[in-house]
C-alpha cells in the first residue's frame, strides 16, 4: 500500500531520525550536490539531478582504518575498527541503490568484509525516484529504472504537494513515521530514457579485446581517477600501514586501475604498461569480468563518468563505437 507524506511530514520525520542516528543526505557544497552526514534537516536538498560523487563512500569510505597496532611492553595487539552507529542514507536514486547492491557481491562474498557488512546492516536506504532524467542517464539499459524500488528500504516519489511513500522492506516499514495516510492518487509514469545497447556489445567484447580501438581512445585519457571515483560501482582499493606519532594503523583507501603503477610490482613487473591497456581494463572489468564472477554488469547507467570526465570519454559512445567495430569485423 502506498502512503503519502507532505514535505513537512518528511522534514519532521528526518528531524526525528536525526535524533537517533546519522543521516546522510544530498547537500549543497559550493556549486555541487554531495552526499554528506547532516547536522540540520535544512541542509537537505530534495531537488537535484544527481550528486557529483556517488553514495558508495558511506559503505566504502575514500579512506578508513581497518585496524590499529598497539604495542605494550613488546606485546602486540591488533585492535579492529568498529562501526558503532546506525545510519539512514536518504535521497539516493535507484541507480545508486543498485550500485550499492552490486558492491555487495565482492564485499560480502565469504570471507566478507566486516566493516562493509556492519555498515550495510546498520544503514537503512531511503530512495528517491527520478521524476526527470538527464541525457546521459541510461539506467533502464542496465537493469534498473527511474522508479525501481528493488534495492532500497523505502522509495519516495515526488507528486504534487508531497511524496508517495512506499515501504519496500520490513525495515523500511519499521522506520516510517506514524500517521501517514494512504495515497490514493495516480502514480506518475517514470520518464523515458535512451537505450544504450550495452548488453549486445558485452557479448562481443572477447573478440574486441585486442582491437586498436583501445589505444586510440586512450590518446586523450588523462589517467586520473575521476571516472572510478565518481562511479557507484568501482571499488578497487589500496592498503598500507600508517605510522604516525607512535600509532600504527592499517589504512585502506580508494585507488583505481587507471593510476600508473596500479599493477606494478616492487620487482618492476607490470602486465599493463600502455595507456590503452589501462583504459581497457576499466571497461573490461566492469562489463565482462565482473559479470563472469558475479552475474551482473558493474554499471548502473547513472551517467556520472560521462559528466565528470575532463576529456569526454563517454561510455555510451564507446559502446556505439564498439558496435561499429563489431560490424566492420563481421564484414556486414
Amino acid at each position, binding site marked *: 500500500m502506498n502512503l503519502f507524506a507532505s514535505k513537512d511530514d518528511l522534514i519532521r520525520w528526518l528531524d526525528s531520525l536525526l535524533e537517533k542516528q546519522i543521516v546522510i543526505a544530498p547537500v549543497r*557544497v559550493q556549486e555541487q550536490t554531495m552526499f554528506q552526514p547532516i547536522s540540520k534537516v535544512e541542509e537537505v536538498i530534495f531537488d537535484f539531478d544527481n550528486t*557529483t560523487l556517488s553514495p558508495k563512500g558511506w559503505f566504502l569510505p575514500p579512506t578508513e582504518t581497518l585496524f590499529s597496532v598497539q604495542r605494550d611492553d613488546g606485546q602486540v595487539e591488533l585492535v579492529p575498527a568498529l562501526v558503532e552507529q546506525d545510519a539512514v542514507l536518504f535521497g539516493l536514486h535507484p541507480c545508486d541503490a543498485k550500485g550499492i547492491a552490486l558492491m555487495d557481491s565482492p564485499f560480502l562474498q565469504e570471507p566478507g568484509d566486516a566493516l562493509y557488512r556492519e555498515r550495510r546492516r546498520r544503514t537503512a536506504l531511503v530512495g528517491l525516484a527520478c521524476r526527470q532524467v538527464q541525457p546521459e542517464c541510461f539506467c533502464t539499459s542496465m537493469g534498473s529504472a527511474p522508479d525501481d524500488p528493488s534495492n532500497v528500504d523505502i522509495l519516495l516519489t515526488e507528486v504534487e504537494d508531497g511524496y508517495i511513500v512506499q515501504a519496500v522492506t520490513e525495515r523500511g516499514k519499521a522506520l516510517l513515521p506514524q500517521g501517514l495516510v494512504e495515497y490514493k492518487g495516480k502514480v506518475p509514469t517514470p520518464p523515458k530514457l535512451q537505450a544504450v545497447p550495452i548488453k549486445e556489445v558485452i557479448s562481443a567484447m572477447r573478440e574486441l579485446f585486442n582491437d586498436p580501438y583501445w589505444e586510440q581512445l586512450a590518446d586523450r585519457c*588523462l589517467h586520473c581517477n575521476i571516472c572510478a571515483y565518481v562511479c557507484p560501482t568501482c571499488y578497487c582499493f589500496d592498503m598500507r600501514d600508517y605510522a604516525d606519532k607512535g600509532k600504527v594503523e592499517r589504512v585502506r583507501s*580508494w585507488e583505481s586501475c587507471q593510476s600508473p603503477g596500479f599493477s606494478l610490482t616492487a620487482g618492476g613487473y607490470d602486465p599493463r604498461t600502455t595507456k590503452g591497456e589501462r583504459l581497457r581494463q576499466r571497461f573490461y572489468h566492469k562489463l565482462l569480468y565482473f559479470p563472469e564472477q558475479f552475474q551482473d554488469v558493474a554499471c548502473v547507467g547513472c551517467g556520472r563518468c560521462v559528466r565528470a570526465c575532463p576529456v569526454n570519454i563517454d561510455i555510451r559512445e564507446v559502446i556505439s563505437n564498439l558496435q561499429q567495430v563489431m560490424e566492420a569485423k563481421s564484414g556486414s
Partner: protein
Amino acid sequence: MDMELIQQIRDKARSLLEEGMVEGVIGYERASDGVTARPFFVYKPSATERLIFDETCAHNLVKYLLDKKGKKMAVVVKPCDSRAINLLLNEGQIERDKVFIIGVGCPGMVETNWNHKSETLQAKCRSCQLSKPLVYDFLAGGELARQAEEETYSDIMEAEAESVSTRREFWLEQFGRCIRCYACRQVCPGCYCPVCFAERLEPLWVGIRIAPEENEMWQTIRTFHLVGRCIGCNECERVCPVGIPLSLLNRKLEKDVKELFAFQAGLDPEEQPPFATFKKEEKLEFGE
C-alpha cells in the same frame, strides 16, 4: 564558430598528414554533449573534417606531446598554451623540430560544464592580452586583438587581503573535499615526473590516506613544485571534479615569483628560471 578559421586549421592539418610531415595532429572536436569540446587526435587526412575551434576549446593540448615523444606531431595551440610549449622546450621535454605548432589567435574561452556553455569568460581569459601564441609554425586566422577586462591577479589580491586564519580555514575546507583523483597533476604540462612524489613510499611524503591533512600536503607540495614553472593555464582548476579553486594557489605563486624575481615561466624557451638556475653572485645570507 569562425568557419574560416576552422577551415584553415583543417586544411593545414590535412596537408601536414597527406605530405607525411607529421604522424598525427592533436586538436579539438565537438564533445558527445554537442555543446562543449574535447581533445581529438587525427591520424587520417579524411578525419580532419572533424576539427573545430571555438570558445569551448579550453583544454591545453600541449601535455599530450609528452605521450608521443619521438613522434613528429602537430598540435593546435592557443596563446596561453604556447607558454607550455616554451616551458617544455626550456626543460628539455620536447624537441622543437618534432612539433609543428598550429597557432590560433584566441577570443577567450568561456566557462563550461557538461552539456552547458556559459557566456562568462574564464578568469584567466578576462585578464589576457595575448593576441597570438608566443611560438607557432602556422597561425590560423591571424592575430586577434585582446582587451583585458580585469587586472591580472585581481582575484589573488582580493584573497591576499584576507587574514591568515581566514585563508587557512578556507583552504582546509577546500582540501577536505579533495579525493586525490590527481586529475590536476595529470592535466598539468608541468607535472611529468615518471614517479610523482605522491606515489613514492620511500621517503613517504603523503601516503595513501585521503584526508584533509594529507590532501593539504599533496596540494601544497605540488604547488611548490610549480613555482617559477606554472604558466597559468588554469587546467588544474577546470578539471577538478569537486571544484577546488586550484588556480588561486598556482597563480599566487606565479605572482610572487614575478614580484620577487621579475620572472614569468613560458615566455622564452631560452629563459633561465630562478629555481633552476644558480649564479655564483647570488647571496644566500647565511654562513657568509
